[in-house]
């Protein structure tokens, strides 16, 4: 059974440890969707970072030293992600997902523009909606597309011009097709 409070606390501790290594994090994935009113089942907290493989190895060692169970999955040449660290324990699972060397701009921009945190005083900042849409388009597949439609239907006030401009800036296609679903 997942304890959401323990899972959140673990993610905040992980963020602090990464911060000590000058690796800032932004909350992505289904937890970010939930923050923006699309609550669907998830069993982990995903943290987006830009960290090369050497840095990921250092981070994995540091997290192990803090008592976490850690598994580093290094990317191969075809991998759309720049490496993933699974951080687990009785609290559940926190995934550190690196976009370094793959799609670093979206994480850099999200870190610069993030304004919301998961709760007062938390280190966990939320990826803004335009960047979340961009990551979902980058991920591709029906589930990611469905996530975009549900996210935007629950956030009608989100500026679609800004979202469209972000996707164009990252040269991501497919947004207009999804926006038609919302008319």
């Amino acid at each position, binding site marked *: 059974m*997942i304890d959401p409070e323990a899972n959140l606390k673990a993610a905040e501790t992980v963020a602090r440890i990464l911060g000590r290594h000058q690796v800032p994090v932004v909350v992505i994935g289904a*937890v970010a969707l939930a923050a923006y009113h699309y609550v669907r089942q998830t069993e982990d907290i995903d943290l987006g970072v830009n960290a090369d493989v050497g840095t990921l190895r250092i981070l994995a060692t540091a997290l192990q030293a803090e008592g976490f169970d850690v598994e580093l999955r290094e990317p191969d040449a075809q991998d759309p992600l720049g490496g993933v660290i699974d951080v687990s324990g009785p609290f559940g699972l926190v995934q550190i997902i690196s976009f370094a060397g793959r799609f670093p701009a979206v994480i850099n921009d999200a870190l610069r523009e993030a304004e919301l945190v998961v709760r007062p005083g938390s280190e966990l900042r939320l990826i803004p909606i335009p960047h979340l849409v961009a990551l979902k388009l980058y991920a591709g597949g029906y589930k990611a597309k469905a996530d975009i439609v549900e996210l935007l239907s629950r956030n009608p006030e989100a500026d679609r011009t800004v979202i469209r401009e972000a996707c164009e800036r990252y040269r991501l296609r497919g947004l207009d097709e999804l926006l038609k679903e919302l008319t």
Partner: protein
Amino acid sequence: MEEPTAPASEDAPRRSASANASLAAEMERLRQMTIEERIKAALSMRDRFAWLDPAAKPE
């Protein structure tokens, strides 16, 4: 005799009125919650709805 034609495919599918009402009620409920509460709701959803698993597990 010509076969009947399908409706124009560019027409976006529409939600039913009851689906719209259901979404509106759900959105109102979610708006009453904090970000933290919504996140915890997502993280605990599997356990809260475990009773939906229809298959009785054999001993």
